[in-house]
C-alpha cells in the first residue's frame, strides 16, 4: 500500500464539523461490485452502509486548495466523506468512471497517465475508524497521511467508534512514478 503525508495543520476540527454535506449516499450495491463478482448483495442492515458526501462544486475553498498539495495530480476533483459511527462503505472498487468520462469529453491528454484516487485522512485515526485495501489494513494513520487507490482495487472503510470519520478523496490522473 502506497503511504504518503502532506501537512494539514491548518485544518481544524471545527472546519471539519462545519462542512455542509450535500449527499447522503447509500453504498449497499457497492457500485456494482457484488454483481461483478456474481454474488448476492450482502444482507446489510438498512441503516449501515451510508456515507455523507460533498463534491467539488459545493466544497469550501479550503477543501479545493488541498488539491495544490498534490501538484503531480492532473485534472483533479475533490470530495469529502463523512462516515458516521456505525456506518461503513462495504467492499467495492472505484471505476473512476466520472473522471474518465469527463477527461474524455474534454479531450484532455492522458498519455502515460493513470486514473487514481488519493484517499487523504483529515484526522488522526480514532477508535473504531478503519481502512482496508486489497486485504491490507492501515490502522495507525495520522492526519495528512494519504494512500493511492488505483482503479479496480477492492477496498472498504468503516466507523465502529463514536466520533465522525472525515476523509478527502482527490481524484485525477498521475504518472506511475508519482504513485509508487
Amino acid at each position, binding site marked *: 500500500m502506497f503511504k504518503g503525508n502532506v501537512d494539514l495543520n491548518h485544518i481544524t476540527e471545527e472546519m471539519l464539523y462545519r462542512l455542509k454535506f450535500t449527499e447522503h449516499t447509500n453504498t449497499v450495491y457497492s457500485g456494482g461490485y457484488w454483481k461483478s463478482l456474481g454474488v448476492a448483495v*450482502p444482507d*446489510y442492515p438498512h*441503516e449501515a452502509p451510508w456515507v455523507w458526501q460533498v463534491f467539488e462544486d459545493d466544497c469550501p475553498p479550503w477543501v479545493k486548495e488541498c488539491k495544490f498539495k498534490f501538484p503531480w495530480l492532473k485534472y483533479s476533483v475533490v470530495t469529502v466523506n463523512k462516515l458516521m459511527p*456505525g456506518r461503513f462503505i462495504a467492499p467495492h472498487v472505484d471505476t473512476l468512471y466520472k473522471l474518465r468520462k469527463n477527461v474524455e469529453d474534454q479531450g484532455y491528454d492522458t498519455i502515460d497517465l493513470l486514473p487514481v484516487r488519493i484517499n487523504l485522512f483529515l484526522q488522526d485515526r480514532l*477508535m473504531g475508524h478503519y481502512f482496508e485495501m486489497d486485504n491490507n*489494513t492501515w490502522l495507525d494513520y495520522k492526519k495528512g497521511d494519504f494512500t493511492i487507490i488505483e482503479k479496480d482495487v477492492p477496498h472498504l472503510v468503516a466507523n*465502529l467508534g*463514536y466520533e465522525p470519520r472525515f476523509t478527502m478523496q482527490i481524484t485525477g490522473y498521475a504518472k506511475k512514478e508519482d504513485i509508487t
Partner: protein
Amino acid sequence: MIKYGNIKIDIPNAQLENIRFQDYFQCYQQYEALEKYYTEHNSSIWQMFEDSPDWVHNLANLIPQDFDHHVVSVIKINPGQTIPHHVDKHFKLKQEHGDGESYRYLIFLEDWKRGHYYEVHDQPFTKWKAGDWVKFGIDDWHIAGNMGDEPFYSAQVTVLTNV
C-alpha cells in the same frame, strides 16, 4: 495486560454454519455517545453459551491453563453488525464461582476475512489466523465488527482464578 497467542484448531466452515444459534440480541450500549448511533439494526449478534457444541467447550482445554473456573460461548457477527465499544464484567462467572481475577480469551475460529475487525484497548487487530487468541481483562474496552460479506465467528472462554 493484554496477551496474544495461538491454539491449533481446524474447524470447517460448515461446522460453524451448522451452529444452531437461538439468542439474537442487541448489544447493550455502555455510554450515551453510543446510544445515538448503535441500534438493534446495526449492533445485534448471535450468541450461544452453555448449549454450545462440545468442540466449543473443548477450546477451554487448549488455552493456557491459568484458571480455576471457566464458561464458554460462541458468537456470530453478521455482515453490517458492530459490537460497540464496551467492557465485560464477567458477572455470570463470578456469580457462580465467587470473586477472583477474571479474564476473557477471545478465540478467532477462522482466518481473518476482509471487513472483519477487532480492537482492544485502542489496539486494532486484524489479519488473524484461525486459533489466534487475545486475552484481556475487565477493564479493557474493546470493539468488534463485520463490514465484510461473510459471517465473523469467534469463541470466548471466560476464566476465573479464585484469590
